[in-house]
């Protein structure tokens, strides 16, 4: 326990290093400020912990940076909870956070199954939350709870963008491999729905358990079907395995995936084979935004052990959105909720945040391609300019 506190302290010191001058100014007034607690809930242990820890670090960075501001009215304290990506544990920690009256708002959930299970709890207890990573549409659209907001987009945008982009690139035949969680199933649904009007054809769909290691049997079938594109509806581990094993079986098809594979982990995991993989993700790349570089620098300086991952910037933005609402309304859940409800044109790290009538941020998906070991915004990539050719195209030509 003691080491843990030391760890937290060291992290704080690191942050102090990040904003040294600002901090020295801020320490004195900070003592006089009231402390307001914000919950962060995500998977900190288990298979999805990489994203969860990235989200937590980003949110904690936002809080530290905000606390270092000399003109902040309150000192914020981030209270992290681990939902283990398990719905029943999620309900437990949601109840814990929501029934703790000193917690004013929450930055909640990456796993869709957990997020959908907890909406009732937040509504019942009146805790305003901002979802930072779960993409299941029903989380915001399946209810009319004023407490539930979401900064990231849903899989509807991603599926639509994927279908439009891929058919426009001239790909005609598709095979979908998706995991059997609601994330994968949803991705499959929205992609398939949008592909038909575009004239694409799905040759086969393979639902697979999310922890499956070996895909050679499915991929041999894929080899037989010779599709233009293999579309992945799943998270990074699935994407990496399918990508590596496609290579092994000599399948030349183009690989496309959803936001779930758009992580540093995919590129690291798939190695050189990642080159040319296309992915669709809500929001533009960090570097497209004014604060993107500053965020990355501050994150690096804070010395976290894990990368921010794909959804870190969303957690960071959600934290800022909440803190700014509290600055305006004071530490009162109802008032904070009302301010969050009406968010329009809020400048955040991930771009402008506008909530629709279901408190869902209106975002459009963007296309990314893996190029030279990085995810590159499609319009900026060598593939868009024609210097490089998508692997699937090279094969079909």
């Amino acid at each position, binding site marked *: *326990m003691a080491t843990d506190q030391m760890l937290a302290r060291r992290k704080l010191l690191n942050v102090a290093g990040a904003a040294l001058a600002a901090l020295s100014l801020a320490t004195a007034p900070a003592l006089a400020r009231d402390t307001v607690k914000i919950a962060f809930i995500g998977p900190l242990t288990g298979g999805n912990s990489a994203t969860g820890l990235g989200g937590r670090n980003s949110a904690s960075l936002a809080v530290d940076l905000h606390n270092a501001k000399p003109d902040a009215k309150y000192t914020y304290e981030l209270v992290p909870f681990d939902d283990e990506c398990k*719905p*029943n544990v999620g309900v437990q920690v949601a109840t814990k956070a929501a*029934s703790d009256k000193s917690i004013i708002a929450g930055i909640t959930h990456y796993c869709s199954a957990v997020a*959908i299970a907890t909406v009732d709890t937040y509504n019942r207890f009146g805790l305003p939350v901002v979802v930072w990573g779960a993409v299941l549409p029903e989380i915001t659209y399946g209810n009319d709870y004023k407490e539930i907001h979401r900064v990231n987009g849903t899989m509807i945008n991603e599926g639509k963008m994927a279908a439009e982009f891929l058919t426009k690139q001239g790909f005609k035949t598709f095979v979908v491999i998706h995991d059997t969680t*609601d994330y994968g199933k949803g991705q499959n649904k929205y992609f398939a729905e949008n592909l038909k009007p575009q004239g694409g054809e799905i040759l086969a769909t393979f639902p697979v358990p999310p922890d499956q290691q070996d895909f050679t049997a499915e991929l041999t079938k894929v080899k037989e079907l010779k599709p233009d594109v293999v579309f992945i509806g799943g998270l990074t581990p699935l994407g990496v395995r399918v990508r590596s094993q496609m290579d092994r079986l000599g399948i030349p098809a183009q690989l496309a995936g959803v936001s779930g594979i758009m992580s540093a982990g995919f590129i690291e995991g798939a190695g050189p084979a990642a080159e040319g993989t296309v992915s669709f993700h809500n929001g533009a790349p960090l570097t497209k935004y004014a604060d993107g570089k500053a965020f990355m620098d501050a994150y690096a300086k804070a010395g976290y052990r894990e990368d921010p991952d794909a959804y870190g910037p969303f957690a960071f933005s959600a934290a800022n959105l909440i803190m700014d609402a509290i600055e305006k309304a004071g530490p009162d859940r109802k008032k904070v909720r009302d301010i969050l409800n009406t968010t329009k044109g809020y400048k955040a790290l991930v771009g402008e945040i506008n909530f629709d009538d279901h408190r869902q941020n209106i975002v459009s998906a963007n296309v990314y391609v893996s190029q030279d070991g990085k995810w590159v915004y499609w319009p900026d990539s060598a593939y868009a300019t024609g210097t490089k050719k998508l692997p699937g195209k090279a094969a079909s030509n």
Partner: protein
Amino acid sequence: MSMADLAPSVPAQTARSGGLARLAVAATVALLFAGGGFLLHAEQQGQVIALLAAFVAVFALAEKVPVGRRIVGLCRAHPGTVNLTAAVSILAIAAALREEHYTLLMMATVALFATAAAGLTLQMAFAGVPNFAGAAFFAVGAYVAALLGNTGIPHLLVLLIAGLAAAVLGLVLLLPVLRTRGHYAALVTIAFGLLLRAFLEVNDVLGGPQGMKVKSFSLFGLDFSRMTEIGPYDVSFYLPYALASCALFGLAFFLVRRLETSFVGVALDAVRSDEVAASVFGLSIARWKATAFLLGNAMIGVAGALYGMMNGFVNPNSANFGDSLIMLSILVLGGLGNLWGAVVAAVVILVIPEKLQAIQEFRLVIFALLVIAILRFRPSGLMPRAARDFSALVKGGAK
């Protein structure tokens, strides 16, 4: 050493000083429950650690110090007093923490998992039938509650049907489970759990991976999740759930203890300990294993149904192998066959990790080390089961 050795010598002494002994027993139990209540409620790390240390100390005292052993013996000799005090203590804790949503939720969770552990006790601790699919049968109960919650069938009946459904589904496994023993039977249940989960996830009939919503429990027209006050008091809607869960555990406790202290208990123990001897003396191994397996699954199913109703949803993930192992850990850590041990272990396994939220991503590894430590240094569990002593049931005492 076994605490059981001490038990028989006690009744003779206590016959003389019955009243005082009962008082001591009641005080001990009440004190333990008070500590447990504080632990459930404590949020500050310092408090949590102090309470944990206190519990470790209590266990050490009960084992190493003569007075402690004496009190343990007294507790064993006066089960009625223990159970009554426990019931009163639970009511008192519930009344004191009536507005604490999270604490009551955890209390209900502990009670329901302990109820499931009671089912596993019948199966594993008594009949020796391994069941590594506890969470699967738990989930079956919750799915039944989801399907029948809206149909107008009284919810008490829904609980019963849920138990029945879990038992019936267990029938599928009966043949392989009866034909095998030990690790082979364990694998049958592991495979069943994985199979059921995969099936629920892939198949959309029962909601697919998202699962189903479960209507909240209502008793005689009283919707539990809408209860926010009782008389003049504001209460958490988790209060009725906590009380119902504890009552359910009480019922399971009663059933299991009754079976244990009957010839059925003797028969089950014999079947577990020595199949050859049991069958030579005329016991049908299949009958008793089947009885325990089906009854146990029914109990797990009922507990699962109430858990589903409390949470408001159920999904395939509820049937995962990890949760089955959690139930098993509760059983083993508590001491196979001792239901109060199961309650203590349920607190250790379900509540302590939540109290460790402050250590975030290191939680799981610390927890795993804790369980290893308990298994390593107390291989028969926190509270080992006592040998069966019928002497209290025999009029006049045949001795």
